[in-house]
C-alpha cells in the first residue's frame, strides 16, 4: 500500500515540477524517487498485509513484481531523458503518465478486490493509449493510438463483462470471498464464464494469439520509448496480473481450460515466431517476438500453485533484455523515421559496445545459456513437463529454434553489413541503461536462485 501511495505521490510531484518550471530536474528526481520507492517496497518484502478492507493486499508476490515494475520504470524514465529532448515542454506529462502507469501496474498485482484490478488495468491502458498516440503530428503514432484504443476498450468491455458475471455468481468483488465461495457452493455457470471472459481480456493485453493482432501495428507505430514500455513493462504487468487473478481467486482451472491455455500458448509461440521471421522493422519484429514470449509465459498458468517464481524469473529475464535491446534501438533509430534493420548495418564496427549489448539481449531472448533467458525457459520447461505437458514443451523448443532465425537476422546485420553512415554522440544515459540492464540479465543468469527462490 505504501508503495502505491508513494508512487502516486511521486506522480503528482512530477506535475508540480512542471508548475515550478523545474523540468531539468524531473528525470533525476523521479529516478531518485523511484529508487526510494524500490527501497520501500523491498523493505516490505516479507510482510503479508491487506489494507483498506482488503482492497490492496501486499504479499511477496505483489512486492516482488512491484519491485520489478519499479526497476523497469526507472530504466524507462531514464531513457526518457534522451528521448524527450525535443519535447521539453511536455516532459513532465510524459513522466507523470509513466509514474501513474506504474501505479496502475502495482495495483494490478496487489489488488484484493476486483474493482482495484479493473481500475488498475484501466489506468494502465489509458496511459498506454495516450503514450501510443503521443507523437501527435505523426500519422503512424495516431494510427497506433487509435488501433490500440479501439481494441483495448473492446477488451476492457469484455473484462468488465467478465467481472460482472463473477459478481453475479458471487455477489462480491472481494477476491478472498470469491475464493472461499468458489470452493464451497454449487456455482452458477456465470462464474466460470466470467473467469474465461476476464482471462480473454487479459490475453488481449498480453497479446496472445488470436488476440495479438494489435501488438505489431501498435508497437510499430508508437514512439520507440512507448514501444519499449509496452513490450517490457506492460506485457509483464498484464501477465503477472492474469497469473495473480487466476491464482488468487482460486479459480478452479479445469482440464479443458488448461487445454485452451496449452493451445493458446502453442499458437502464440508459433505465430509470433513465424511472423517475426520476415519483418524488416525491428520494433515490429520484437512485437512478434513479444507475442511468442507471451506464449511462453502462459505456460506458467498450467501449474498455478508453484510457478510464481518461474513467472517472475521469466518476466525479469525477458523485460531486462527487452530494455537493453530497446535502449540500443533508441540510440540507433534516433532521428530516423523508421526502425528498419538497415539502420543497424555495421553497428558492430561503429559502436561495438552497443552492438554487443544488443547481441547479448537477443541471445537472452533466444534462450542461449548464461543469459537469464535460458534459465527462464529452462525452469518453465521443467515446470511444464512436471505438469505433464511434454508436447507443449516440444513445441516450445521448436519455436526457440525458429526464434533464433530472426534474432540472428539482426545480429548478422550488425556484424556483416557495412554501415551506411556515421553515428555521432555518446549518450551516456543510454549506455548506462543498456549496460546495467544487460548486466542484471547476466547476473540473473549466473545466480538464478536469487530470483527463483523469492517466490518459491
Amino acid at each position, binding site marked *: 500500500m505504501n508503495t502505491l501511495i508513494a508512487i*502516486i505521490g511521486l*506522480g503528482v510531484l512530477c*506535475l508540480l515540477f512542471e508548475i515550478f518550471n523545474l523540468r531539468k530536474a524531473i528525470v533525476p528526481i523521479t529516478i531518485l524517487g523511484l529508487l526510494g520507492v524500490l527501497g520501500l517496497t523491498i523493505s516490505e518484502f516479507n510482510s503479508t498485509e491487506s*489494507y*483498506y*478492507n482488503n*482492497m*490492496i493486499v501486499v504479499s511477496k508476490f505483489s512486492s516482488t513484481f512491484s519491485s520489478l515494475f519499479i526497476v523497469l520504470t526507472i530504466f524507462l524514465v531514464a531513457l526518457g531523458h534522451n528521448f524527450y529532448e*525535443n*519535447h*521539453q*515542454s*511536455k516532459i513532465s*506529462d*510524459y513522466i*507523470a*503518465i509513466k509514474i*501513474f*502507469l506504474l*501505479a*496502475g501496474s502495482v*495495483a494490478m498485482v496487489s489488488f484484493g*478486490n476486483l*474493482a*482495484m484490478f479493473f*481500475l*488498475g488495468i*484501466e*489506468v494502465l491502458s*489509458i*496511459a498506454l*493509449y*495516450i503514450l501510443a*498516440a*503521443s507523437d*501527435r503530428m505523426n500519422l503512424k503514432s495516431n494510427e497506433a493510438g487509435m488501433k490500440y484504443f479501439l481494441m483495448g476498450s473492446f477488451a476492457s468491455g469484455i473484462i468488465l463483462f467478465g467481472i460482472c458475471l463473477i459478481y453475479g455468481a458471487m455477489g462480491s468483488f472481494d477476491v478472498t470471498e470469491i475464493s472461499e465461495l468458489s470452493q464451497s457452493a454449487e456455482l*452458477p*455457470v*456465470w462464474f466460470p*464464464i466470467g473467469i474465461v471472459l476476464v482471462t480473454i481480456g487479459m490475453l488481449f493485453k498480453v497479446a496472445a494469439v488470436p488476440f495479438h493482432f494489435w501488438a505489431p501495428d501498435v508497437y510499430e507505430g508508437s514512439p520507440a520509448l512507448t514501444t519499449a514500455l509496452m513490450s517490457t513493462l506492460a506485457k509483464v504487468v498484464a501477465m503477472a496480473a492474469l497469473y495473480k487473478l487466476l491464482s488468487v481467486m482460486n479459480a478452479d482451472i479445469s482440464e479443458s481450460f488448461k487445454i485452451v491455455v496449452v493451445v493458446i500458448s502453442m499458437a502464440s509461440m508459433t505465430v509470433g515466431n513465424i511472423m517475426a521471421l520476415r519483418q524488416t522493422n525491428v520494433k515490429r519484429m520484437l512485437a512478434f517476438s513479444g507475442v511468442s514470449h507471451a506464449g511462453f509465459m502462459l505456460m506458467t498458468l498450467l501449474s498455478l500453485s508453484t510457478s510464481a517464481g518461474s513467472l517472475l524469473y521469466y518476466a525479469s529475464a525477458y523485460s531486462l533484455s527487452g530494455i537493453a535491446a530497446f535502449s540500443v534501438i533508441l540510440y540507433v533509430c534516433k532521428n530516423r523515421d523508421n526502425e528498419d534493420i538497415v539502420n543497424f548495418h555495421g553497428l558492430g564496427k561503429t559502436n561495438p559496445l552497443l552492438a554487443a549489448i544488443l547481441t547479448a539481449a537477443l541471445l537472452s531472448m533466444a534462450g542461449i545459456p548464461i543469459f537469464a533467458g535460458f534459465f527462464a525457459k529452462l525452469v518453465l520447461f521443467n515446470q511444464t513437463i512436471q505438469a505433464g505437458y511434454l508436447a507443449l514443451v516440444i513445441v516450445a523448443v521448436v519455436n526457440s529454434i525458429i526464434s533464433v532465425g530472426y534474432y540472428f537476422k539482426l545480429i548478422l546485420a550488425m556484424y556483416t553489413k557495412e554501415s551506411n553512415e556515421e553515428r555521432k554522440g555518446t549518450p551516456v544515459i543510454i549506455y548506462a541503461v543498456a549496460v546495467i540492464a544487460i548486466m542484471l540479465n547476466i547476473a540473473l543468469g549466473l545466480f538464478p536462485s536469487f530470483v527463483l527462490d523469492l517466490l518459491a
Partner: protein
Amino acid sequence: MSTVLIIFCVLAAITLATAFLTIFSRNPIHSAIYLVICFFSIAGHYLLLNAQFLAIVHVIVYSGAIMILFLFTIMLMNLNEEREVHRPRITRVGAIVSFCLICLVLIAIFINSKPIVGEYVTTGEDYQSIKVLGKILLNEYMVPFEFVSILLLVAMIGTVLLSKKEKLQK
C-alpha cells in the same frame, strides 16, 4: 404477465431498437440521438430496479456529459452529412456472422445452464439508497474511489498532452 414485466419488455424493446438504430443510422448525429434515447431507456431499467440514484447519475454522466462530448466532436468535425465510404461486403458479412455467432454462443450457454429456481431473496434491507451507496463508496471503496481520481487525472493529462500545441524550439 405483470405490469412490471410489460414495462420491462417495452423498455427492453426500446433499448435494443435504439441500439440498433444507433448503429444503422447513416448520419452520426442521428446515431447520437438514438444513443441518448437508448441511455434513457437504460436509466428506465435502473428505475425499474429501484436504483434511483444510479439512474440520475447515469443520465447526468452519459446523456449529459459523454453524449455532449460526442456531439461536440461530431460538430467539430462537421460530420453531420454522410461521409462514410462504402463498406466492403466482406466487412458486413463478417460483422453479421460474428454478431450472430457471439449472440448464439452466449445465449446458448445461459440457456444451457441450470435455471435459477425459487424465489429471489429479499432481505428487506436498504441497500441502494444514496445514503448506503455513499457509505460504501467512501468507506469500503475508498481506495478505488481515490484511484478513479488517478484514472481521471491520467485521462486529463493525456487529453491535454494530445491536444496541446508544442512550443517550438529555437
